[in-house]
Structures are given as structure tokens and as C-alpha cells.
């Protein structure tokens, strides 16, 4: 039986708030979602939300941190497979982007309107993706399987492709997840582009 301590209760409430925020940010956007609606969706009072998060920005930060940590977990699982190839890293990246698709698309579209620390953290997460991509790409570049491409351009080309489809997902895939529909095609296209 689960021991219900004050600490676990606090953690559960925090998790509920983060889950409610992800859901509402995904549906309505980040900027236009109120803290009142998040508290209501989580089943707690508005005041309780601020016992867990000093400010609204702290809650947004917690949500984006959740995305970064899921991405890290996907990369960890890829690393454990011990396959040194770029394709595996990109697949892991796509899995998490698809999992957070609606939130991520809003994040990209609203980034300029968000607090500097949120924007900074987003680019730290992107830096870890770039880092991970290049470790594997560099290995394949040495083997002549991939063209020599500078690290920022390798990542920026990949992310530009994803972001274009995500931002315009309503016209690419009006009735379903754009990542579930297009990710295979985008992955194959990108891997073709980087071939020697």
C-alpha cells in the first residue's frame, strides 16, 4: 500500500498541476491559458497553484522541463541500445516531439512572447539534441556514410524541417498528429539530404 506522506501529497499535487498545464497549453496555447483554468483543471484552488509555483512563468518552466527530461530519457534508451547512428537519435527525438506535439508547436510559435528564462531553457534542450545528433553524425562522417556538415547547420536544418511542419500542422495534417503522419517521410528525406 502506498504511504501517503505530506511530501508525496505535495509531489502529487505538483504533478497534477503540470499535467493540467500541459493539457491546456496544448489545447489553447501557452500565453492565453490562465492560471485559474489550470488550477481548476487540476482540482485545486488558485492559491494552491502559487504554493507550488512562485509565478506563472515557473509553471511554464516546469512544463518545458518535463519535455526536456522526456527527451533525455528517450536519448538514454537509444544510448542503451548501443547503436551509433544518426537515424536512431532522430527517431528518439521524433518520438518525444510527437508525444508533446501540440504543446511543442505552441511553444515554438509563442517563444518570442515567453519569459527569457523559458526561451533560454528551450535552447538548452535544443543544444542537447544538437550535441547528441553530432556525436552520432560525426562517427558516420568518419565512415563516409554522411557528408561533412557543421554541427549547427546539421541541427538547424533538421529542426527547421520539423518546425515548419509543426507550425503549419493544421494544413499538413488537419485531422491527426502531423508527426505521426509525416515523421517517417521527414526522417527519410533528411537522411537522404545528408548522404555523401
Amino acid at each position, binding site marked *: 500500500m502506498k504511504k501517503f506522506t505530506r511530501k508525496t501529497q505535495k509531489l502529487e499535487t505538483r504533478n497534477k498541476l503540470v499535467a493540467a498545464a500541459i493539457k491546456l497549453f496544448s489545447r489553447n496555447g501557452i500565453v492565453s491559458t490562465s492560471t485559474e483554468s489550470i488550477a481548476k483543471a487540476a482540482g485545486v484552488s488558485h492559491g494552491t497553484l502559487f504554493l507550488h509555483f512562485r509565478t506563472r512563468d515557473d509553471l511554464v*518552466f516546469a512544463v518545458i*522541463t518535463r519535455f*526536456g*527530461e522526456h*527527451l*533525455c*530519457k528517450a*536519448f*538514454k534508451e537509444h*544510448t542503451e541500445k548501443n547503436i551509433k547512428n544518426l537515424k536512431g537519435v532522430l527517431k528518439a527525438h521524433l518520438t518525444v516531439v510527437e508525444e508533446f506535439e501540440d504543446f511543442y508547436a505552441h511553444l515554438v510559435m509563442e517563444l518570442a512572447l515567453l519569459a*527569457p*528564462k523559458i*526561451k*533560454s*531553457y528551450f*535552447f*538548452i*534542450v*535544443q*543544444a*542537447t539534441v*544538437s*550535441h547528441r545528433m*553530432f556525436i552520432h553524425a560525426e562517427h558516420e562522417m568518419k565512415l563516409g556514410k554522411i557528408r561533412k556538415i*557543421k*554541427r*549547427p*547547420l546539421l*541541427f*538547424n536544418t533538421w529542426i527547421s524541417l520539423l518546425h515548419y511542419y509543426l507550425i503549419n500542422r493544421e494544413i499538413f495534417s488537419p485531422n491527426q498528429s502531423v508527426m505521426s503522419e509525416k515523421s517517417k517521410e521527414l526522417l527519410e528525406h533528411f537522411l537522404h539530404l545528408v548522404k555523401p
Partner: protein
Amino acid sequence: MDKNCISCGSCGMPLEKTEDFALGDTSSVYCKYCTDEQGQLLSFDTILTGTTKFYVESQGVNEEAARKMAKALLLDMPAWRVKS
């Protein structure tokens, strides 16, 4: 090691592998890049420079803009946040 990742309390980087943690100790709240060989947190300026470099090298962003982003992030992390 926990299957979930946690983020460094100094620079925010998600910690993937055991060796990413300070001294390779998964109970540490900081990453290896933010700490010295004794596991002690490096100076704010050193970490600011390292984080700036991480932005520049990974995404080719302008150095001044990268430094500004790094500062905005670090100043709000548990290690560097001014307690109010």
C-alpha cells in the same frame, strides 16, 4: 539509476548518463560541467561562459545573444537564484 532524467540545478541541462553527474554520482544535483574535480560548484562566470559556448557551438547563435540567454537561465536556477 532512475529511468527518468533530472536537470542540473545550476545550468538546467537534463542529465542522461551517470557520467553526466558531478563526480559520476547520481545523487548529485549538479552536472559534471558545472563542478570541479571535488564536485564543488564552479564560479558563476565560469558556468556562464560554458553555457554560452554550448549555445554557440550547438546552434551557431550570436555570442552576445547566447550570453544573454545563458544569464537569463542561470539566474533563475536553484544554484544561482537570489533568495527572496
